[in-house]
């Protein structure tokens, strides 16, 4: 398994997707810093929690979903695009081992991505609110960002399944776009607690503390946890079975 994970990491060498890892977390913070730059009034009127919450909303609603869908799509579909799938399944590993290797890579990427986001926002907060940042604050948000990573990761097996059938990068782009539209336009307040793509946002806000000014608030995190666990487990198991039985045809 170690060799599989190492090989998956090596495959990303010189890949433009590594820029996502750097730019994804940094961009919201850079925008936020630009707005705050030289505006003492704005800094004074914006509570530190609010600044962090803004970043969490952006990461949950836009950046996290899109980047994870893109990365998952890339990891799955590139093997078909570059026709390396024929070689990949003729190594002395089970196909499910290869699958686990890819899932571990995405997990590693996902955690790094959200922790980098946390570090970026921490730097931002330290610049503008240095004296207000306590160890408890850092610990609390560190855990929240880690949970955000895990919540977004729980959606990966489903995207993986779709990409296994789609076999094209366009599929994952389509998924990312569709999720954004559905999340933004069609999800009602009642559905936020269980719709898998709003659960990370709703749960994050719930964990930080519900804000009456925000249209997202849930009373309990449990329905979301059950929803994400379901959406994680079923495709995960399906993929294990499907990959072992899948025929690799010409041009696939």
């Amino acid at each position, binding site marked *: 398994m170690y060799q599989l994970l190492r*090989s998956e990491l*090596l495959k990303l*060498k010189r890949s433009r997707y590594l820029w996502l890892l750097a730019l994804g977390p940094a961009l919201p913070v850079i925008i936020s810093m630009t707005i705050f730059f030289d505006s003492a009034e704005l800094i004074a009127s914006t509570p530190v929690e609010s600044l962090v919450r803004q970043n969490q909303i952006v990461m949950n609603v836009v950046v996290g979903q899109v980047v994870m869908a893109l990365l998952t799509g890339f990891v799955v579909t590139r093997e078909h695009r570059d026709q390396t799938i024929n070689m990949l399944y003729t190594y002395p590993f089970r196909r499910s081992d290869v699958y686990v290797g890819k899932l571990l890579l995405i997990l590693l990427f996902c955690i790094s991505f959200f922790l980098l986001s946390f570090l970026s926002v921490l730097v931002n907060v330290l610049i503008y609110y240095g004296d207000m940042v306590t160890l408890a604050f850092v610990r609390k948000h560190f855990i929240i960002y880690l949970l955000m990573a895990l919540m977004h990761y729980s959606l990966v097996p489903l995207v993986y399944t779709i990409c296994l059938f789609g076999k094209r990068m366009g599929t994952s782009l389509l998924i990312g776009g569709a999720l954004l539209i559905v999340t933004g336009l069609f999800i009602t307040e009642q559905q936020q607690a269980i719709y898998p793509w709003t659960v990370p946002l709703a749960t994050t806000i719930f964990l930080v503390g519900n804000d009456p000014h925000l249209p997202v608030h849930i009373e309990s995190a449990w329905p979301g946890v059950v929803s994400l666990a379901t959406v994680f487990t079923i495709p995960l198991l399906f993929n294990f079975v499907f990959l072992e*039985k899948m025929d690799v045809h010409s041009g696939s």
Partner: protein
Amino acid sequence: MTIARGEIYGFLGRNGAGKTTTLRLILGLLHPTAGQVELFGEPVTPAKRPPFERIGSIIEFPGFYPNLTAAENLDLHRRLMGLSRRDAIEETLDKVGLLHARNRQVKTLSLGMKQRLGIGRALLHHPELLILDEPTNGLDPVGIKEVRQLILDLAQRSKITVLISSHILTEIELLATKVGFIHRGRLLEEVAYDDLLRKNRSYVELRVSDDKRASLLLEQRMDLQDYLIPEQGVLRLYERLTEASAVNRLLIEHGVDVQELRVVRETLEDYFVRLTGGDLDVPIVAE
């Protein structure tokens, strides 16, 4: 399909005949709906996968990670095959004549270089069986010659078993020690290349009044050894084809009537067409 150790098995068939599908079945990329694949004397089942450490393969096109260099792609293969020796990469690149391109990203390599790198990768872990699916596809004549020579050198030096599929007759003619003909998903015939050559050789065919006397005369007076009597009254001479008139004179002078004499040149293409019942809806390529 039966392939003995050390053979270069040419798997010949038209486009769409089922060559790649067969190779995919052997490699476990496809699951058979009926029948069984046996490799190294062991059956391959969904529970018991092929011994991939003992096989090197290129199916259709050697796929690489374009953002990695030639050496990095081989290193990836080395790790996944569980080889500890790092110097195997340099050795392999040298073997396929790509040492100078070791640090070039694969996306910058030519098609011929990629094919050679693919063969190198298939050989990196010293397999006992090398499966090459149309390894000269898309190559220019020089590239085809290079790859062919490479396969021959490797087969002779490393004594590995090679299964090579192609729809190009000359490619098989120049490489194979045994040929399997596939047509519309069915393996029609397997034949040792020497036997095939015998079947396909040019010959002088004589229809004579007395084949026994004729053969005796040819043996004694012209020292002819390589001939065949396929049917009564018919002689096929496989040597000294340019001396057909001398043969004719000799037989007539000794009272053997020659009713017909002709030079017949059967090609592998003729043989293949004859084998497939003259079905030429999709032409096979004789280059």
